[in-house]
């Protein structure tokens, strides 16, 4: 071995047939960065025994935590959303439409193995689930950040020769913003759409170390956005706590897109500062989602040629 750098790394994912059993990657994901780690909660012994030092350690439970940030590619983000607290429906042939709707399950229905190669060393994180998903605009393209939690590092040693996707990110000219849906608006330059299902590993008294199962908690789903402040219409809706359906579509053609809908978005932060002499007057808005009259909260729709079984 010798010194390594990030460029030589890679990340691959695979759905697990048996949750927690390492599966070699079937899909390689071009990432911007990742921070997955095995966290061990050791117990350090500090009894009073004529010593100020920790006199020993009891090996603790462990789990996997971290995040992966990637350019939002519909054929890649699809895998992570499928391992989140959402139920997917697939339609179409050759050109597929995957529609993911949130659920209220307590434990993850689907897990994945995430393989990370760092300087030639293979880390195989198993039982991985997405606890939080973020869709945002950074450097003028859409990016995803997925907060991952999982069971352990299987330290596999498969021979990995990746096959990379050729899908392209969503940049300028690929956007359709509708607030309220279907009214197209052209005053937004950044947004961050987050779904946080408060995922965590759960530890129980048992005959081996590690988590017993993963669970989800209370979900929060929100979007922050910056918009030009042109008149008081939107501000009036904020004061009246009026719900609106918001839709954002990033499209690279009829058959390749990422869309998400907030069916009943309530604005609970609306800041319109005079921030400086030369600054445009803009609104910083936070939208919270609540169920609409039909019980819909949000959905994520991927149009892609990727073939998975959600």
């Amino acid at each position, binding site marked *: *071995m*010798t010194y390594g750098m990030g460029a030589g790394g890679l990340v691959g994912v695979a759905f697990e047939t048996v949750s927690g059993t390492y599966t070699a990657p*079937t899909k390689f994901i071009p990432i911007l960065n990742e921070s997955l780690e095995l966290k061990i909660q050791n117990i350090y012994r500090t009894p009073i025994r004529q010593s100020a030092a920790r006199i020993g350690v009891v090996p603790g439970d462990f789990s996997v935590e971290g995040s992966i940030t990637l350019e939002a590619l519909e054929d890649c983000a699809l895998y992570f959303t499928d391992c989140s607290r959402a139920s997917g429906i697939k339609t179409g042939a050759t050109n597929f439409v995957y529609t993911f709707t949130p659920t209220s399950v307590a434990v993850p229905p689907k897990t994945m193995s995430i393989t990370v190669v760092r300087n030639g060393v293979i880390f195989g994180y198993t039982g991985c689930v997405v606890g939080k998903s973020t869709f945002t605009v950074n450097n003028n393209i859409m990016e995803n950040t997925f907060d991952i939690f999982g069971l352990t590092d299987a330290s596999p040693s498969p021979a990995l*020769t990746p096959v990379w996707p*050729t899908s392209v990110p969503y940049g300028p000219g690929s956007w359709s913003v509708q607030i309220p849906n279907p009214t197209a608006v052209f005053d937004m330059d950044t947004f961050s759409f987050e779904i946080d299902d408060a995922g965590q590993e759960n530890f129980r008294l048992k005959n081996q170390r590690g988590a017993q199962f993963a669970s989800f908690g209370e979900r929060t789903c929100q979007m922050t956005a910056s918009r030009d402040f042109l008149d008081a219409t939107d501000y009036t809706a904020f004061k009246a706590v009026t719900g609106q359906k918001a839709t954002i579509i990033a499209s690279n053609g009829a058959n390749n897109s990422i869309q998400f809908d907030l069916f009943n978005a309530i604005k609970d932060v609306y800041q319109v500062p005079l921030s400086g002499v030369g600054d445009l007057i803009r609104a910083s808005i936070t939208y919270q989602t609540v169920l609409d009259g039909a019980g819909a909260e949000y959905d994520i729709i991927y149009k892609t040629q990727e*073939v998975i079984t959600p």
Partner: protein
Amino acid sequence: MPYIVKVDHPSAGDQDVYIHGLGTFRNGTETTVDDDQVMRFCIMTGTQVQGIFNDEGEVVAPHDEDGRSEVRFIHGREPHELDIHGVTVTKKEEKPSAKTPTTPAPKTGEEGTK
């Protein structure tokens, strides 16, 4: 000696896939790749190895007594020797011509340079 790259990827669908150093291929197709491209693949998938090497090119120690070590670049293996998910690469054997004397195949694969 050309290589045949057959892409039958179970999840790629009707998309192109990219193999670093080898090229871009449509899922469901067979493509012929020449020796030059394969050599490029072997270089692009090569790795650096650091240590003290013996005559067989094996690392026998991480460094010498003074903390010095050598770095060598080791070519990656040829694609037909690798397990690539959804891709099969085969080396197309050429029948030797009756008029052309056969020569030993050049040694490829692990080849060190300082």
